[in-house]
C-alpha cells in the first residue's frame, strides 16, 4: 500500500511537471526558448529512431565505463596504500586536494589542451571521480572497528583472511553506497566534456549540435535520453551490488546457507 502511494505520488509529480511546462510554453509563446512537451516528444522520437543513435549512446557509455573503471582502479591502489601507510597518505594528499578544489571547467580546458577531444572527457571524469572513490576506499579500511582487528590478532587469523573477509567486504560496502551517485556524476562530467570537446558521435556533441541549430526541443529530448540513461545506470548499480554480494557469498566456499540481513 505504501509502495502504491509512493508510485502514485511520483506519477502526480510527473504530471505536475508536464502541466507547468505546458502552461509556461503557452505563457512564453516561443519554441526556441521553451518548446512544448509535444514538440519535445516528436524530437525525442526522431533522435531515438536516427541511424546514429545507438552508436552515439554506445560511445558515451563506453567513455563512462572506461573512466569509472580507471578511477576505481586508481582509487583502490592508492586508497589501500594510503590507508595502510600514513607517509604515502600525506604524500598524495596535496594532489587529491588539488583534484577536489580545481574547478571542473579548468580541468576541461587543460584536458582539451593535453589530449584529443575523444579522450579528454575520460581524463576529466577520472580526475573528478577519483577523489570520491579514493576516500571511500580509505574509509572502508580505516573505519573498521579496531576491536575486531584486535580480535583477529588474538586468534592469530592470517593477514590474507583479514583482507579477504574484513577489509574487502567493507570497501565494497562503502563503494556500493556511493556507486549510483558517483556513476551519475561521472555521466554528467563525460557529457559536459563532450559538449566542449565535441568528439564524433557522442551525446554531448549531439546536444551541442541541437543548440547550434537553435533546436531547443532537440536539446530537451537529449536531456530526456540522459534521464533514461541515468535510471538505467542506477538500476545497473543495484545489479552490480547484488552480484558483488553474491560473489562474496560464493567466496565463503558455499559452506553456509546464508540469510539476508
Amino acid at each position, binding site marked *: 500500500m505504501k509502495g502504491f502511494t509512493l508510485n502514485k505520488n511520483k506519477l502526480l509529480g510527473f504530471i505536475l511537471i508536464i502541466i507547468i511546462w505546458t502552461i509556461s510554453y503557452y505563457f512564453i509563446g516561443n519554441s526556441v526558448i521553451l518548446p512544448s512537451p509535444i514538440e519535445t516528444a516528436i524530437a525525442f522520437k526522431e533522435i531515438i529512431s536516427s541511424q546514429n543513435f545507438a552508436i552515439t549512446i554506445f560511445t558515451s557509455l563506453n567513455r563512462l565505463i572506461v573512466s569509472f573503471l580507471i578511477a576505481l582502479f586508481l582509487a583502490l591502489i592508492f586508497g589501500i596504500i594510503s590507508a595502510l601507510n600514513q607517509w604515502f597518505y600525506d604524500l598524495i594528499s596535496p594532489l587529491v586536494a588539488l583534484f577536489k578544489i580545481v574547478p571542473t571547467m579548468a580541468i576541461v580546458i587543460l584536458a582539451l589542451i593535453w589530449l584529443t577531444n575523444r579522450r579528454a572527457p575520460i581524463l576529466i571524469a577520472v580526475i573528478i571521480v577519483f577523489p570520491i572513490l579514493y576516500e571511500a576506499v580509505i574509509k572502508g579500511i580505516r573505519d573498521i*572497528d579496531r*576491536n*575486531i582487528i*584486535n*580480535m*583477529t590478532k*588474538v*586468534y*592469530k*587469523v*592470517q593477514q590474507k*583472511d583479514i583482507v579477504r*573477509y*574484513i577489509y574487502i*567486504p*567493507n570497501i565494497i*560496502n562503502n563503494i556500493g553506497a556511493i556507486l549510483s551517485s558517483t556513476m551519475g556524476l561521472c555521466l554528467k562530467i563525460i557529457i559536459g566534456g563532450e559538449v566542449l570537446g565535441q568528439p564524433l558521435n557522442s551525446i554531448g556533441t549531439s546536444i551541442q549540435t541541437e543548440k547550434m541549430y537553435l533546436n531547443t526541443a532537440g536539446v530537451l529530448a537529449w536531456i530526456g535520453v540522459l534521464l533514461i540513461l541515468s535510471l538505467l545506470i542506477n538500476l545497473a548499480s543495484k545489479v552490480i551490488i547484488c552480484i558483488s554480494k553474491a560473489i562474496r557469498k560464493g567466496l*565463503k*566456499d558455499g*559452506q*553456509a*546457507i*546464508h*540469510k539476508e*540481513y
Partner: protein
Amino acid sequence: MDKLYIKNINKSFNNLEVLKDISLNFKEEEITCILGPSGCGKSTLLNIITGIITDYNGEVVGFNNKEISFIFQEDRLVPWLTVYDNIRLVLKDKYNEDQIHKRIHEYLYLTGIEDYMYYYPSSLSGGMKQRASIARALTFGGDLIIMDEPFKSLDIKSKLQILKDFKEIVQTAKSTVIFVTHDIDEAIEIGDSIYLLSDKPTYIKKAWNNLDQENLRNEILMNIMQESVD
C-alpha cells in the same frame, strides 16, 4: 597442561604503581575469577598474562606458546559475516573443513544458538551475540579461555541465564578459564576460586578457593568495605 601461574608481578606507568606483588595460580579445568574494582588494573594484568605488555617485573609461567581464546567485553563479531562464518574465520588455520563444521555445530548447540547459525549479528539480541562470542572461544579450543568482563553489557536476565549456561558448558568442555570481573555475584556464580584485588596500587587482598562457604558474598563485601575504610 603445564602449571599456570604468575609470581610477584609489579607494573608501573610513569612512576605510578599499578600492580604490586601480584601472585596467582590458575588451576587446570577450573574457572579462576579475578575480582576487582573498575580501573584497578585488571586489563593490564590480562595484557601481561597474554604477552601484550612485556615491560614488567615478575614471572609469568606456563603461558608461552599457549593457545588462548578470548571473550571480550564486546561481542566483536564481524557484522557482514554470519555467526557460522564469524566462528569459521578464527578456525580456518587450525582445523580442516570437516572439523570446523562439526565443532561449530557442537558448540553452537552447547551455547543454545544452533538455530541462529546462519544469522547475521545484526539480527541477534545482545545476549545471543555474546553467546556467539563464547561459542567462538570454545570452538577455537585453546588451552586457556580468558574472559574480560564479558557480561558487562547484558541485561540482568540474559546475564543470569548465560552465566548458568556458561558454567555448565565450561565444565563439559573441560576448559581452563581466567574470568575477570568487577561484579561479586558473577564471580560467586561462575568461579571455582576468587582472587580479590585492591584498588591502586593493586595487590591481592584475599583469595577464596572454597566458594561453597556460607556468607561468602558478605565476606567479600566486608573485605571490599575494609579497603574503603583503610
